[in-house]
């Protein structure tokens, strides 16, 4: 039940943060920060508590919810879920700190939305009942919508609407697929159940399986996102407040990758195998297209947003390589990208706060004025470019290794994507922090202790994964073994 309490704890903290604003306008952010720190330690404690040797789960929880329809609150945490829950909570801390002084209106409601988004994401990562999964999947949308629509930048209405519409509509396709799956299971066995473990055994004919698989697949690649359903992402990321971008890029996109690994592939193994080439192709297209688009951006945040599309392409390639290396690579990429992109979005937020612009043409030579910010940007640009020794490299390298066994031409194309990443990454660095100092920028306040300590967390995490990825690999391995597919 621990995990259910963790979710309820985050939801409760959100309510408290919202209500306490009346008495003290600064209290909500402290409550939120504290809640995420507690949740992080809590997750750590679950990790240290170790997995049940028989089932491989760290903690499980079951509660009757709608028995008439065979729906239960069924939460289980295995290694993969645990890593992602940990990432969620750490990014929660980072998100709160990154928007520490950015928000001036209704701070309580702002923190409420952050906490509720994160609670929804934790639920998504742990749900073992398809109804519950869908429930959390949609629940995390609403607070995110508010984050963009209320505290976003100039074009927020359009961006928020686009984000919601894409995810909601693709989610409905998944809902139909879920219901159809449950109904087919009912026809076969006479039992109505939404339990993931039960539904793994449904026998499906080829066409039906393909159609249902597509329902899940489309929902997940919309969230990931992959070409051709990526168009919401640049708008949503650019318009969201810093905390919103951090959460979106750092963790919300990962729910798509997680969904592919947890649901699409195991539930429809045959259909997914048949579909693997198309999926990998989409991944490669995303890598190249994302890289190309990133290079052509003049907006700092938009560049990072497009680079996310490219990095997420690797996840698609890795998952559909259908081997252990590829899957492990996809998982490591999810974690590493979570940190590196969160850091870059935070940087974009800090720059916007100081310069009131995201246009790189109005920056230039900023390193001289703020060396700490420059160094930090440099580190995370290099990380996201894929420098060996840092997390992203491990992830993308494993993905390419896995894909190489399956399809050499696609792997070659994906590798070109890494070169493209170096081009746009370094161009980002040059245009903003190097070159001739922009005369219009007189002085710029450098990072203080608050920012540096958050960046330190992310640096440690990336170096840790980069130098000793075994922790993450070990955590994810049992999950991959238990997926029940021959890798």
């Amino acid at each position, binding site marked *: 039940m621990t995990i259910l309490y963790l979710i309820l704890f985050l939801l409760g903290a959100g309510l408290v943060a919202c209500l306490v604003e009346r008495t003290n306008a600064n209290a909500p952010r402290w409550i939120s920060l504290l809640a995420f720190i507690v949740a992080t330690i809590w997750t750590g404690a679950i990790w240290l508590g170790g997995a049940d040797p028989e089932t491989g789960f760290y903690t499980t929880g079951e509660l*009757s*919810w*709608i*028995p*008439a*329809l065979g729906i239960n609150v069924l939460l289980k945490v295995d290694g993969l879920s645990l890593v992602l829950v940990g990432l969620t909570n750490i990014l929660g801390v980072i998100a709160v700190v990154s928007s520490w002084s950015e928000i001036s209106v*209704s701070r309580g409601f702002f923190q409420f939305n952050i906490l509720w988004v994160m609670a929804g994401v934790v639920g998504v990562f742990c749900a073992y009942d398809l109804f519950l999964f*869908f*429930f959390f999947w*949609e*629940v995390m*949308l*609403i607070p995110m*919508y*508010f984050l963009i*629509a*209320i505290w976003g930048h100039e074009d927020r*209405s359009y961006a*928020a*609407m686009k984000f*919601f*519409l894409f995810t*909601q*509509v693709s989610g*409905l*396709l998944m*809902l*139909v697929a879920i*219901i*159809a799956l449950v*109904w087919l299971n009912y026809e076969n066995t006479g039992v109505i159940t939404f339990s993931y473990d039960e539904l793994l055994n449904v026998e499906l004919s080829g066409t039906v399986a393909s159609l249902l698989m597509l329902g899940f697949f489309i929902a997940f690649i919309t969230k990931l996102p992959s070409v051709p359903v990526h168009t919401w992402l640049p708008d949503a990321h650019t318009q969201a407040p810093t905390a919103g971008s951090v959460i979106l890029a750092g963790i919300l996109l990962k729910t798509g990758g997680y969904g592919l690994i947890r649901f699409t592939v195991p539930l429809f193994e045959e259909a997914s195998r048949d579909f693997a080439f198309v999926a990998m192709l989409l991944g490669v297209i995303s890598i190249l297209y994302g890289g190309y688009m990133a290079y052509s951006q003049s907006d700092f945040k938009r560049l990072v947003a497009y680079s996310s599309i490219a990095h997420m392409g690797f996840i698609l390639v890795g998952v559909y390589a259908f081997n252990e290396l590829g899957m492990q690579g996809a998982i490591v990429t999810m974690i590493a990208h979570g940190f590196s992109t969160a850091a870059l979005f935070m940087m974009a937020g800090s720059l916007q706060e100081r310069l009131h612009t995201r246009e790189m043409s109005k920056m230039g030579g900023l390193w001289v004025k703020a060396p700490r910010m420059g160094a930090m940007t440099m580190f995370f640009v290099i990380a996201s470019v894929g420098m060996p020794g840092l997390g992203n490299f491990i992830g993308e390298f494993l993905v390419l290794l896995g894909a190489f066994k399956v399809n050499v031409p696609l792997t070659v194309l994906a590798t070109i994507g890494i070169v493209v990443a170096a081009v746009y990454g370094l161009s980002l660095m040059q245009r903003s922090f190097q070159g001739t100092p922009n005369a219009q920028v007189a002085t710029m306040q450098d990072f203080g202790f608050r920012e540096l300590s958050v960046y330190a967390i992310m640096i440690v995490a990336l170096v840790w994964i980069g130098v000793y990825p075994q922790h993450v690999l070990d955590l994810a391995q049992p999950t991959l073994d238990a997926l029940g597919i021959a890798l």
Partner: protein
Amino acid sequence: MTLTDLWVSFPLVVLVGGTLVLMIGVSIVRTHKLALGLTLLTLILSLAAHDIALDHIPEGGYELLGLLHVSGVQVFFNALFLLGAIVTALFAYPYFDARVERCEEFYILLLTATAGAMVVAAATHFASFVLGLEILSISLYALIAYPRQSHAPLEAAAKYLVLSAVASSAILMGMALIYVASGTMAFAEITLSPESGERSYFLLGQALICVGIAFKLSLVPFHMWTPDVYQGAPAVVTGYVATVSKGAVIALLITYVQATEVLSYDGVFYAVVFVAVASMIVGNLLALLQTNVKRLLAYSSIAHLGYLLIAVLVVNSARPELVLETILLYMAAYFIITLAAFGIVNLTSEHETEDNEKLEAYTGLFWRNPLLASILTVVALALAGIPLTIGFIAKFYVFAAGVEGTAWALIWALLIGSAIGVFYYLRLIYTMVKEVQPGATALPRIGNQSVVAVTVLGLLIVVLGVYPTPMIDMIRSIVQASGF
């Protein structure tokens, strides 16, 4: 008339008796508060009488005088009507107290309309169908026009009167034709014998009845009256029209479809499929264009009844229990959500000469009145069918019924309709979270029973959305006992 007959009809007797008492009471003392009190008392007593009636209804329902059939399903609908009427009465008190001089007759009309709805919902015979429908409709004409000094309600009532009369005459003509073909007016006996030469009469009759019903449910292409009437009528009455009058016809539709198996005729079936798809798509598309909240809700209700028709349409291909369960659950959700929606329109327009119905009037409501804005947000999310709200559970059931009935075309229409729907519901939410325009008037401080009623409805939407088990269990036991 046996004693059981009396017990089963007891709720209706109480309601009609209460109406008479109110009528006499009003002619002696005209006090608004007393009228409200008597109305609420009558409605609550009638609700309580249902509990007694339930003890006397055998498994599978009870046939009353060959005109009405009362089972758990009808009791469920009646409970919805009575609760709808109670909420309407609560909303109406402050609304009319500030606007109209003589408010007492409103409550009499409200009670007669509710009685009419109860008769329609239980009808199994053309005679009771027409009687109930006319009692309901005639009360509604007057209810819509009740603030008689204003221009808009009168216009709306005139429109509704003319168009509704046309629909009623279509129904009557259809009945006549069916009577010619089958020689009976009781639903259960209406069949077309294979050797009958009156096939064309029969099908034309069914078509006319379907048209009339589609009109009353404001389904496309018989929806033209809806936005105008919704906009013109006072918000309290609109909420009542949108819920009780439609609920009654839906209840009748279930009985009618089940008894006459009218959907097994291909022509009728595909016509209804067309109507359902058109309602989902057209309703949502036109809602996109609205800048008036009442009109937006009108088109949204058109779309919602289109969704509900999916459940009706799969009656022959899915399990009948699931179909009935879906319809009852959807109706309950629809009642709660719609009443809350119009309750808020009503509350935000207090002390103004016109209803607060322009979309821009809601700009920044979140910062001006967080409670009402939160409830309206919940309502919008529920209408869009987003989880955490009862609207999602309802839509989930429709999906389930559609999948089980393998009605894929209808599911696609539902998907497309929902996608369009998200757009304008979100726009409403976005309007509320925008910054307050300088010069926007602060809302009046409202502290009365209507706020409580709206809050309760808002909470119900969320609580039943998160934990629907009690409601599902109750509906399931009703469905099982009804022997549908």
